[in-house]
């Protein structure tokens, strides 16, 4: 076995047992009694703030009440009617900044109802039993193209299929799921859940997925528009922002590190540096940093250019990183990466502009990961807004018959937001197709 302190980048720093323990479920499922106790804490608020805080508007008090009356599968249906990826969202939603932050018990006691875990209890109950809860409407004869089998595309496709439309999803990669499959921390979605959830979702019928088909590659928007009654773009952000410093080429993309980890059969075979530096302050940065530690990196530093309270990652995620031994340094910017040393410079906010103070710090860095944001790879004639596809209403792009949603459109880049946008676009597409 490689010694945990082996210099440089090496695989097998930890034992199989250590790896298994490190990558176990972050929030283990509630058992039935725990779920009933947790459900009982819900006050069934009037016009509940948690519903307002949920991007998919799940009727949270209703589904929790259904759990407490002994019907977790009915609760799951309440969830899935609004959010077909409710199982994944139960695992990966930053509930601490969404429903659970809005929970009145958070205000009252600093301890919200465990909405995320209850949602998982309900959706797990349904998915364990297999079978798909929704039924397709009669075929409409319409055929819609969905580009991207990520959360937005899948939510859109499912809703369209339910309405009786035929859907073909064009996916660039060889697996569906998008960031659910290739992004996110492994400890949030264990046991191949992303793939199982897509299989289950496709149980609605009427959805075909064509793999290895990439828009801008062998696929053109014009051709899609010609061959289908409508097009929904649920594509991801293909480009990663570079670090503007000498040595950027020596760094790697945090998203690629995470994708490799998610796809690895044996995590012990995955090489990781003894000293790892992650540049960035969002969820991707935390996911990469924590997992580097869990793979056995001795020192992992998260370097963020502004104050801690400006980080994209929630307080919960920051605390998680700290609890796993990640050192967070704020107010530093990358200056150079040379000969295994990451040079950072402290920053100060001067009249709203971030500037280097001249004071530097140097960290040993066998592996540097970039996580300072991603960009949309520009696509033909589509109008852009802040670098993303400009949309109006429920995802209507500037081109007739083309809708878009998810990370490629403005708005928060969250699974749950993507699901909401895909679902709403599907309703709009359906209305448009049925009117024609």
């Amino acid at each position, binding site marked *: 076995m490689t010694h945990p302190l082996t210099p440089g980048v090496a695989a097998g720093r930890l034992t199989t047992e250590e790896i298994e323990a490190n990558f176990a479920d972050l929030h283990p499922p509630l058992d039935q*009694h725990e779920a009933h106790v947790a459900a009982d804490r819900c006050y069934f608020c*009037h016009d509940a703030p948690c519903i307002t805080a949920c991007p998919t508007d799940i009727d949270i008090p209703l589904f929790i009440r259904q759990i407490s009356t002994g019907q977790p599968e009915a609760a799951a249906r309440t969830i899935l009617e609004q959010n077909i990826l409710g199982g994944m969202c139960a695992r990966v939603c930053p509930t601490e900044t969404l429903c659970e932050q809005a929970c009145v018990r958070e205000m009252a006691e600093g301890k919200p109802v465990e909405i995320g875990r209850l949602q998982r209890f309900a959706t797990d109950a349904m998915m364990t039993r297999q079978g798909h809860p929704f039924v397709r409407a009669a075929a409409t004869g319409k055929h819609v193209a969905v580009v991207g089998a990520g959360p937005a595309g899948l939510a859109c496709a499912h809703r369209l299929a339910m309405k009786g439309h035929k859907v073909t999803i064009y996916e660039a990669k060889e697996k569906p799921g998008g960031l659910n499959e290739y992004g996110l921390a492994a400890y949030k979605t264990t046991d191949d859940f992303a793939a199982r959830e897509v299989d289950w979702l496709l149980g609605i019928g009427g959805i075909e997925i064509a793999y290895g088909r990439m828009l801008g590659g062998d696929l053109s928007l014009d051709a899609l528009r010609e061959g289908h009654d409508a097009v929904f773009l649920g594509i991801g952000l293909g480009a990663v922002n570079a670090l503007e410093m000498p040595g950027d080429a020596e760094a790697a993309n945090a998203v690629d590190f995470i994708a490799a980890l998610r796809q690895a059969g044996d995590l012990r075979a995955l090489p990781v540096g003894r000293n790892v530096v992650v540049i960035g302050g969002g969820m991707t940065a935390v996911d990469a940093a924590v997992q580097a530690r869990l793979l056995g990196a001795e020192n992992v530093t998260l370097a963020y250019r502004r104050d801690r309270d400006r980080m994209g990652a929630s307080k919960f995620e920051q605390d998680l990183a700290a609890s796993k031994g990640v050192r967070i340094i704020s107010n530093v910017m990358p200056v150079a990466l040379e000969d295994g040393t990451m040079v950072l410079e402290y920053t100060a906010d001067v009249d709203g502009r971030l500037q280097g103070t001249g004071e530097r710090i140097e960290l040993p860095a066998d592996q540097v990961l970039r996580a300072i944001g991603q960009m949309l790879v520009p696509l033909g004639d589509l109008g852009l807004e802040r670098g993303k596809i400009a949309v109006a209403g429920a995802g209507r792009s500037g081109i007739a018959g083309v809708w878009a949603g998810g990370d490629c459109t403005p708005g928060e880049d969250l699974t749950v937001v993507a699901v909401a946008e895909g679902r709403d676009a599907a309703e709009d597409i359906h209305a448009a197709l049925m009117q024609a």
Partner: protein
Amino acid sequence: MADLTTNFLGISSPNPFWLASAPPTDKEYNVRRAFEAGWGGVVWKTLGEEGLPVVNVNGPRYGAIYGADRRLLGLNNIELITDRPLEVNLEEMARVKADYPDRALIASIMVPCEEAAWKAILPRVAETGADGIELNFGCPHGMSERGMGSAVGQVPEYIEMVTRWCKQNYDRPVIVKLTPNITDIRKPATAARNGGADAVSLINTINSITSIDLDNFAPEPTIDGKGSHGGYCGPAVKPIALSMVSEIARNPETRGLPISGIGGVTTWRDAAEFIALGAGNVQVCTAAMTYGFKIVEEMKRGLSEWMDEKGFARVEDFVGMAVPNVTDWQYLNLNYVTKARIDQEACIKCGRCYAACEDTSHQAIAMTPDRTFEVIDAECVACNLCVDVCPVENCISMERLAAGAVDPRTGRVVQEDYANWTTHPNNPMAPQAAE
């Protein structure tokens, strides 16, 4: 430090907490454990007549109702009186009483409604040295089908008759245990007093079916696919028991008749409430069955603590203190005008008060887009529902409008004097002013 010693009907016990006649008092072993744990007295599990003992079902005999986290709120049972031979029970009672002379030991009895049956058993009970007897006229299941238990307790004439037999054939205190499965508790209590009873104890259990198994469509507890109604007890029945105790305490025909309060006593506070309504002591069963005998320790310490705070040296110092404040609706002061007040600092913005008031009451709470909830005095009838549904204690309270203030709902000036329905102009029965 308050003295918890009570002297109920001349029967002394170190505290007012007795175990009711029920499964926990069926055997010497249990009763010794109870006394070691500190219980002031026990009413032994009901004895039947000499001969072959009754039998119990061999399947489940209890059903339950739960609150949050499986907290047991109500228990239902279909167990009958003791299923052990009379002789065994009597021998055990005598031994226990001899070993615990300072504790109260009462024999509960249920035999057929014939004088001979009572004459036969009473001397044998007397021989045990028991401090008194309790007549089980309450059990609503099983025995009642054989003309005993609540079948007697539902007929005041029988109560009076059997009580009289007992008084004639037994020289120690006779307590009559009443069933709540009647329309007016004052009638059986009056009958008991007329028969010479030294006290009544109430309530026995309430006819109940706790739940239905929706797979087998059978009542719980289910015995081979069938179920029978049982007797309901536990915290859920306390309000019913308190009301019945208060009626006997207030009724001119039974006022002053000693009462042993029973029904959902779980904490010292429950006991204090029964005693304030006129009970001289309390009997406990479900709390002990749920938590074990040790629970009496909290009851004793709690009651003692509260009595010290209130300055009561002995339990009898506050017996019945709440009775004068129990009145009929028609005598409630209609000039007492209150309005709900919401403490905005304490409010957690759940909106339950709003939903309750808007949907089911008087539309007297306004809600702003930022979820601030304010009472609309012009609509508030002071019903208290908002207080009751609010999950935060003391967040919503009722504030009295001072005399001279105008009630925005009625536009009337609040009067200082007391006025009730009996003289209200809307009351057709109110005395008319002389023409």
